[in-house]
């Protein structure tokens, strides 16, 4: 019998890793959004201070 080694089978046997994957995707999404927001804010602040 062929031993299954696909990612799907692994996640099926270890549901905690599904939770980990979802948690990491959510966190990295929030983090990259905040980083982009930081960059945009810096640009706007520079533009605002140079026009003031």
């Amino acid at each position: 019998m062929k031993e299954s080694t696909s990612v799907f089978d692994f996640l099926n046997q270890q549901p905690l890793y599904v939770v980990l994957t979802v948690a990491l995707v959510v966190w990295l999404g929030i983090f990259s959004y905040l980083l982009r927001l930081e960059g945009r804010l810096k640009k706007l602040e520079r533009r605002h201070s140079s026009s003031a």
Partner: protein
Amino acid sequence: MGARLLLGLWLTLVTILALTLPMVPHPVHWYDLPIIPGLEEKARIIFFHVPTAWLSALAFVMGMIYGVRYLRSRNPDDDLKSASSAGLGFLFCFLATVTGAIWAKFSWGTFWNWDPRETSIFVLLLIYGAYFALRSAVEVEEKRAALSAVYSIIAAATMPFFLFIMPRILASLHPEPLLNAQGKVHMNPTMLVVFLSSLAGFTALYFWMFNLHVRSRRLELANPQHEGEHLRV
């Protein structure tokens, strides 16, 4: 930028550790977490649920502090900070409610059963919901700021009662809080390290989000014609 990347890495590592460290009946290795009877793997939610509840308390207290500062200085910037902090507190309070309800579904079989913990956090959400209703109902800036500041002080004064006292004096199915009735922390050392790391990371995240929110509101107020628009560069 370096500190922010460090925070990103820190919370990524905490998430990985919180969800992958093995849970065993009798911890032997430093990386083993104990199995808590009745909670088992569900106990891992403590690394995310408790920090969100802690941040809501911290944000509401910060909102109160800036409210007091506004009443003393009448500086609109303090009102802005007070409202920003209350907004973040509401967000984290909502997250604590949602994560708690998900945990309740798997532990108690239902998302909501009006347990004293659930009731008290719901009342707290209503109190702060009323804060934002108040802010949007008053158009005169100074009057809105003064009323909000007074309300934020009263609301924050009720917060310890709803978050810390009421759930302790009424019979609850909620697991014993981290700081128990005897004022002692009963937690496996490895679990405590991961938990405190999560708490520190979440607290830094709050201060970053607070800083971003205050700066974006300042820009909006400095350019009233763009108020309410998304940040575009």
